[in-house]
Every structure is written in structure tokens, then in C-alpha cells.
């Protein structure tokens, strides 16, 4: 048991360390969420050729502070018939797994919560617990639209967990370990995993977009469709907790992508100064966050049957083929990277270039059948 | 002071018999399914506890992972069973809109 600084009793230091670590995690999560709300509005504004928030603070940089103050002081409106304990518990059930995910993210070789030997499985498990909170939120609001939004969101989330895990499995097959530190250390220098596992990366990226309810998969919180989906009855600080957990989930998912496919904390100068790893990790993670926001500003929204069809009929079969091929290659070759790269880039090319062909054939089939059924109707009606 | 193996087995037995009582007494089909899940969980706990005990008999004892492997298969079977069970409940619900097993007696002579 290590003696704490200033000679504190070891037991008190152990408890104090726990409290400080939890406080740091909450601090990082909250500040990340604040930064991301502002970043999102500014980035979307610049992409839409306007300025974004501009009044509060220099260049609108204090807008998040104003948002936070507003949310804190808002009245807590609660409809009378909502199921009170579940209504109140749902934001906590959604927020807690996201907070708990921060413990295994490898910010640097020294700066880490815990190097679990099953770190990646832990992150996946926590990701699946947030679905429960969303279902409870939809149910407890006693509101038809919330219930629909909650169930649709749950269906989308559990469907897209499968390609998410299948994408991760390919990397784990190659690295041979579930520990985040081992995965980072398997990519020394500029030879990152994305060079020879790009299809797994794209699968995980698309599934992560769906898992965090981001465009083009944000039907559950689409404002024009279901009021606000399962969030309808939540206002003020309760809504803020859902919002925080969404941005926290985005941060965790981007951190996973950085670790698995882009080298994690590696970058120029890390060997000399290990703390520089934190900078590289944060820069790479926020690069992906910016990519998420870029996609949100660009693409239109998918309908629920379109996104389910895409998951089950396109992503999952291709991901399964990828895993089979990767497993065979890893067993067959001593250095499987070249063969893995060939298979992955081929599959990626098939996905990107093949999708328009199959969709075009399907659309033509629809048009033909619609024309036929209309023609038949006219034939029957004529005297 | 470590926890003896018997404590884990006692908890497992307690949960199993609570689940069994639930299956016998409750009338709601979904609740019966939940109690069956409790029973499966109880057997999982017993399996893992005994597997760990067997693993302590000696380093590299080849018997020490059979319990844990069986637990993985119980997970798979429990998931499949809940899916099919709920499908059956929904299909019966479509016929006559009730989940009370006393009222679903179309096959009773």
C-alpha cells in the first residue's frame, strides 16, 4: 500500500485517489461535452456559410457556458402521469456507462485509468447498457411519440451493435489481445492498422455513427419527425444529462477508433516525452469528432427501414466475410499484413462501388412493378 | 478471511428455488419467462464457482475450464430461448389478447 503525498495514511490515500480519479473523469467528460457543443455549432455554421454563435464572449467562445447556465436554471417540468422512479432514473442509466468507459481509454502509456486485459470487451459491454436507459426513458414518459422514438432507437442501437463488434473482432484477431494498451503497441510508428484493415474501420465507423444516434442515423432524435423522440418529456438539466452522454459516447467511440486503427498515442516525439502522447491522442480523437460533425452537416437522414436494411443486408454479411477471410489469412501467413490489406481494400471497394449498382437495380425493379400495377388498375376500371 | 465455496452454492440454490417458485405461482407469461432466466442464472453461478474450485486443484489442471465453457453455452441457449419464447407469447397474444396463462387454454380438452 503506497504512502500518499504529505505522508497521508495509505488507506485514506487509496480512497482519495479513487475520488480524485472519478472527479477527473467527470471533469474531462463535461469539458469535452462543452467543447463539442460549441465546436458542433461553429463547424456546422462554417460549412453552411454562416457564422454560428458570435455574441457571447470573443468570437462566441463562451456560448457553452451560457448554455450550461440556462439549462441549470430551467424549470423542472414533469408531466403528471409519467412513471416517476423510472423517469428520473433513465438519464442516470444512460450516463453512467459512458462515464465508466473513460477508465480504459489509453491517453498515453502512463496516463491511463486501468489496463484491463479485457478492455475492449468492457467498452463494448458498457455501450450495450445505454440502450436499456433509452428504452426506459421512452416508456416512462407516458407519451406515444416518446415510446415510438425509444423503441425505434433501441432497435437501431441493438442492430448496429453487431457490425460494431464484428469490426472490432478483425482487429483483435490480428493483434491477439483485447487490451487497449497491447492494441496501441501493435502499431509502432506510421504503419497504423488502418492501412491494412480499412474495411473493418469503415464498418466500425458506420456502426459508431448509428450507435451514437448521429446523422445520417439520427431518426430517433430527429426534430422534424417525432418531436424529439424519447427526449420529448425531458427538459433542463435532465435533457442536459442525455446530451452529455451523447457527446461522451461520441468521444469514447472516436477514442476507440483512434486506438484501434490509428495508433492511439503514438506520434512524433512520444518516446522522449511520454506526456506528449496525451496531445496526440486528443488531436486524433477530435479529428474523428470533426469528421462526425462534417458528416452531420452533409448527409441527409435515413429512414428506419433503410438503415435497418443497410445493417442487416449489407454490413453484417460483408463484415462476416471479412472475419472469415482474416481468420484464414492470419493462420496461414506468418506476416498477414499484405494479404489482409488486399482482402480489406477489395471489400471496401466492393462496398463503395458496388452499392450504387445494386441500389440502381432495386430502384428500377420498383419502378417497373409500380408501373405494372397502375396499368393493371386502369385496365380493370375501363368499361 | 475468504469466502468459502459453499456460500456461492447457497446463493445459487436460493436463487434457483426462488425462480422455481415464481414459475409455479405466477400467471403472467412474461413473468414466467423472467423467472426461468433467474433459474438459468443460478445454475451459471454454480457452474462458475465449481469451475474455479476445480481450477485450484493444480496449475494447468485440464478440468478447470469445463464449467466456464458450459456457462458460455448456457448464455447462448438462454438468449435463443428468450427470443423464441417471446415470439410464442406475441403470436398467442395476437390470437386472444391476453398474457395470462390461465386464459390461454385453446388446446385443453
Amino acid at each position, binding site marked *: 500500500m503506497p504512502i500518499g503525498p504529505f505522508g497521508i495514511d495509505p488507506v485514506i490515500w487509496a480512497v482519495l485517489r479513487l475520488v480524485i480519479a472519478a472527479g477527473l473523469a467527470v471533469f474531462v467528460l463535461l469539458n469535452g461535452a462543452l467543447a463539442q457543443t460549441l465546436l458542433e455549432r461553429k463547424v456546422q455554421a462554417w460549412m453552411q456559410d454562416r457564422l454560428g454563435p458570435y455574441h457571447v464572449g470573443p468570437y462566441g467562445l463562451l456560448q457553452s457556458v451560457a448554455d450550461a447556465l440556462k439549462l441549470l436554471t430551467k424549470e423542472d417540468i414533469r408531466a403528471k402521469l409519467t412513471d416517476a422512479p*423510472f423517469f428520473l432514473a433513465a438519464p442516470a442509466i444512460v450516463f453512467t456507462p459512458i462515464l465508466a468507459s473513460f477508465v480504459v481509454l489509453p491517453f498515453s502509456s502512463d496516463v491511463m485509468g486501468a489496463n484491463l*486485459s*479485457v478492455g475492449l470487451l*468492457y467498452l463494448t*459491454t458498457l455501450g450495450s*447498457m445505454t*440502450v*436499456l436507459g433509452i*428504452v*426506459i426513458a421512452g416508456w416512462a414518459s407516458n407519451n406515444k411519440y416518446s415510446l415510438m422514438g425509444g423503441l425505434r432507437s*433501441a432497435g437501431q442501437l441493438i442492430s448496429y451493435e453487431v457490425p460494431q463488434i464484428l469490426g472490432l473482432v478483425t482487429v483483435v484477431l490480428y493483434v491477439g489481445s*483485447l487490451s487497449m494498451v497491447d492494441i496501441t503497441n501493435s502499431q509502432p510508428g506510421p504503419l497504423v492498422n488502418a492501412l491494412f484493415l480499412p474495411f473493418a474501420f469503415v464498418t466500425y465507423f458506420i456502426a459508431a455513427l448509428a450507435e451514437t444516434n448521429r446523422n445520417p442515423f439520427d431518426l430517433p432524435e430527429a426534430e422534424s419527425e417525432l418531436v424529439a423522440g424519447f427526449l420529448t418529456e425531458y427538459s433542463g438539466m435532465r435533457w442536459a444529462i442525455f446530451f452529455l452522454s451523447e457527446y461522451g459516447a461520441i468521444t469514447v467511440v472516436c477514442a476507440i477508433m483512434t486506438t484501434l486503427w490509428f495508433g492511439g498515442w503514438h506520434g512524433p516525439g512520444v518516446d522522449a516525452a511520454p506526456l506528449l502522447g496525451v496531445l496526440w491522442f486528443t488531436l486524433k480523437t477530435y479529428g474523428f469528432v470533426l469528421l462526425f460533425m462534417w458528416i452531420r452537416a452533409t448527409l441527409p437522414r435515413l429512414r428506419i427501414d433503410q438503415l435497418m436494411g443497410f445493417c442487416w443486408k449489407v454490413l453484417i454479411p460483408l463484415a462476416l466475410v471479412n472475419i472469415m477471410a482474416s481468420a484464414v489469412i492470419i493462420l496461414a501467413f506468418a506476416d498477414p499484413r499484405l494479404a489482409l490489406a488486399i482482402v480489406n481494400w477489395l471489400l471496401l471497394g466492393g462496398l463503395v462501388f458496388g452499392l450504387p449498382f445494386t441500389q440502381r437495380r432495386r430502384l428500377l425493379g420498383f419502378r417497373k412493378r409500380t408501373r405494372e400495377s397502375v396499368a393493371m388498375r386502369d385496365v380493370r376500371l375501363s368499361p | 478471511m*475468504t*469466502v*468459502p*465455496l*459453499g*456460500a*456461492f*452454492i*447457497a446463493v445459487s*440454490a*436460493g*436463487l*434457483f*428455488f426462488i425462480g*422455481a*417458485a*415464481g414459475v*409455479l*405461482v405466477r*400467471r403472467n407469461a*412474461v*413473468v414466467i*419467462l423472467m*423467472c426461468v*432466466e*433467474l433459474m438459468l*442464472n443460478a445454475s451459471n453461478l454454480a457452474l*462458475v*464457482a465449481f*469451475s*474455479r*474450485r476445480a481450477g*485450484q486443484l493444480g496449475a494447468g489442471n485440464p478440468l*478447470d*475450464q469445463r464449467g*466456464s465453457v458450459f456457462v*458460455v453455452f448456457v*448464455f447462448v441457449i438462454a*438468449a*435463443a430461448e428468450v427470443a423464441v419464447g*417471446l*415470439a410464442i*407469447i*406475441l403470436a398467442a*397474444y395476437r390470437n386472444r*389478447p*391476453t398474457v*395470462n396463462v390461465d386464459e390461454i387454454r385453446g388446446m385443453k380438452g
Partner: protein
Amino acid sequence: MFDILEPLLFFVFAIGIIGAGACVVLLRRITAQALLMALTFASMAGMFLLLGAETIALFQVLIYVGAITILILFGVMFTKQDDRGYGLFFQRQTPWAAAITLVIGVPVAFLAFSFKDPITPSAKGGDLIPLAGSLFTDYAFPFEVASVLLLAALVGAIVLVKQDER
């Protein structure tokens, strides 16, 4: 000083398991029952962690809390639950249930304490690699059979709830 931590954690998880399990059987409100079942599963995962089986604990949370609880909640939401209550404790089977629980269950639970071997946490670094080794070498055939079983369950569940398109 931290010696008491393990029995304390065991006690907390055991209370969680037995208490939540009893509530699942005894309560009336079905949403409360579903969530208490999830609490049972989570306490069970904690118990697995105490036994040193962390992979199985994470699988437990992933499969049971993350998927089966949601399936059951879907089942609850798509059917109309009648809360009238059908005389919960005075069914025809209550004497049988009481007999099984008291006459068989309680002695079994007490006899279980005759296993006096202590479970010590193993220092060999987790159960992921031994479990994976066993599963994919000695038990690869049951693994494949389980996959086929899952496929059959998937197809069967879809066929059962499919409505004829008119």
C-alpha cells in the same frame, strides 16, 4: 485492512441477487419486475468478478442486461399487461411451490455450506486465455452447434411473429 473487502462485496452482491430475485417473483408491476431482474443480472456479474471470471462477468452484462432485458421489455410493451392481479399467492400451485422451496430448497441451501474450501483469487492473470483456448480447441464442435442453434432460433422467432401480408 482490506481483508474484509471481499466478504463485504460478496454480501452486497448476494443481497442484490436474492433480494432482487425475490422482488421479481413477488411484485405486481411488471416494469419494476423487469428492471429488478436486470439488477439481479448485474449483481450476478459482480459475483462472477469476485470469482475471478471477468470475461464471463462481461458476457453476462452484455448478453443479459444489454439484450435479454431489452427483449423482455419489448415483450412487455407489445402486450397489454393486466394489472388486476389474480390473487397472487392463492393459486392452485402455491402449496407445491411452498413445498418445493421449503422442503427441498432450504435444506439444499444449508447443505451447500458443507463445501468449505475457500475460493482465493487466482494470481495467474484472468480467465480470458484459458477460456478461449478451451472453447476453440476442445469444444469447437459444440461451439459450431451453438451457432446453428442461434440461427435456428433467429429464423424461428421471425417466422413465428410474421404476419401474413394481405
